[in-house]
């Protein structure tokens, strides 16, 4: 019901367009012999892998599962289920040793201990959640750390330095996955295909040069709800289609909604799409049975997230001449 507002998405048409685009981009633009996709057991990577199989053929797609010691075992099981159905090879590489070598867990745990001195490494679990909820209040976006000791949970607001250190250390997971994906891509002369959707791409829910470091991003223009629509017409196991989107980054399970988006995807996408189509706040509120103030807060929150993460989407910047033109000479050799 909610997702139907302003929705003109045709999954079959989109699928055909994407299959052709992936084929042309990998073979003609990038001039690569095939592609690698990191499969997480989630809906986005499943849809991208299924599209890539159709675009490139089973023999030109390599799937990689890159778990670490804190990954949910369910992620790997679902990745196996997916590739079995698609008929493509799967390489599983545990990246725990690499992360340990980089000090990812140690650096992160150091910051967690600074907030919760009682935190017991490898025993307690924790997660980071965003406190705000644009539907019910006007809180400013604020990250909290939740420590789980047995059945007890306690949350504290994260101080700036500890927040930054936890995020920086945790981002090593996505960055090491990127490094591993490129190793396999380069040894086979393949391209790396990204799996981020529009919600992640536009609101900055990705790691620059981590999961955002890829050669192509086929579904970066699709709302999460549209990715689910596409999944219905692709050979994707029901178990993946029904799985709740998770970050699978922190020792404790945390949904993407809890960690960052703070709204059900059906509602966020409906409001976002209607706003994009020029519908008024009044009209959107009426159709969704919400107050105008709630719709306005949600739109403001989307804009704020997009604005504050703009740098994530920028390529490395070169020096300009003041008119926005590159100060360097043309990069093309005629």
């Amino acid at each position, binding site marked *: 019901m909610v997702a139907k507002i302003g929705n003109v998405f045709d999954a079959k048409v989109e699928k055909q367009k994407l299959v052709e685009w992936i084929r042309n981009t990998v073979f003609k633009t990038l001039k690569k012999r095939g592609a690698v996709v990191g499969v997480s057991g989630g809906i986005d990577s499943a849809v991208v892998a299924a599209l890539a199989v159709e675009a490139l053929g089973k023999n030109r797609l390599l799937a990689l599962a890159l778990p670490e010691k804190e990954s949910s075992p369910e992620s790997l099981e679902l990745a196996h289920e997916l590739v079995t159905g698609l008929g493509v090879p799967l390489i599983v590489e545990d990246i725990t040793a690499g992360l340990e070598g980089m000090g990812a867990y140690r650096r992160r745990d150091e910051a967690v201990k600074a907030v919760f001195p009682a935190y017991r490494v490898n025993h307690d679990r924790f997660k980071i959640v965003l406190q705000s909820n644009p539907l019910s209040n006007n809180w400013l976006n*604020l990250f909290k750390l939740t420590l789980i000791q047995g059945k007890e949970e306690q949350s504290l*607001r994260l*101080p700036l330095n500890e927040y930054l250190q936890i995020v920086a250390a945790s981002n090593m997971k996505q960055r090491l996955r990127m490094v591993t994906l490129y190793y396999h891509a380069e040894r086979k002369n393949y391209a790396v295909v990204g799996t981020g959707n529009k919600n992640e791409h536009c609101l900055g829910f990705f790691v620059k040069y981590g999961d955002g470091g890829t050669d192509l991003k086929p579904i970066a223009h699709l709302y999460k709800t549209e990715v689910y629509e596409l999944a219905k017409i692709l050979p994707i196991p029901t178990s993946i289609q029904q799985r709740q989107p998770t970050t699978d980054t922190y020792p404790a399970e945390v949904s993407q909604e809890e960690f960052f988006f703070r709204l059900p995807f059906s509602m966020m996408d409906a409001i976002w799409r209607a706003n994009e189509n020029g519908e008024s706040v009044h009209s959107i509120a009426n159709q969704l049975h919400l107050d105008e103030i709630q719709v306005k807060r949600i739109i403001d929150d989307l804009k704020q997230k997009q604005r*504050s993460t703009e740098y994530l989407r920028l390529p490395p910047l070169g020096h300009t001449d003041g008119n926005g033109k590159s100060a360097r000479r043309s990069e093309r050799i005629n």
Partner: protein
Amino acid sequence: MTIRSRVRDFVVENFLYGEDNGFKDRDSFRELGIIDSTGILELISFLEQTFNIAIEDAEVIPENLDCIDNIVDFLTSKLSGAKSKKLEIAL
């Protein structure tokens, strides 16, 4: 140095990189896009340390922190022991 000037100096130095370009004390941080979730943490940390106060989660709302005027009002009531604005809607 007044509360206002200390807050303003911090905001201009940290969020506007020393160039206020006519930035007014009533201008919304969020609407102008000069403060994000990391910036909020920086601001809270500055206020708590500089004015020796503890800011509760429920006080982290635009009415208290979204512009210099609001921060000054918030600090004035907080430092005088008056009741500050808090979020009243339960989650």
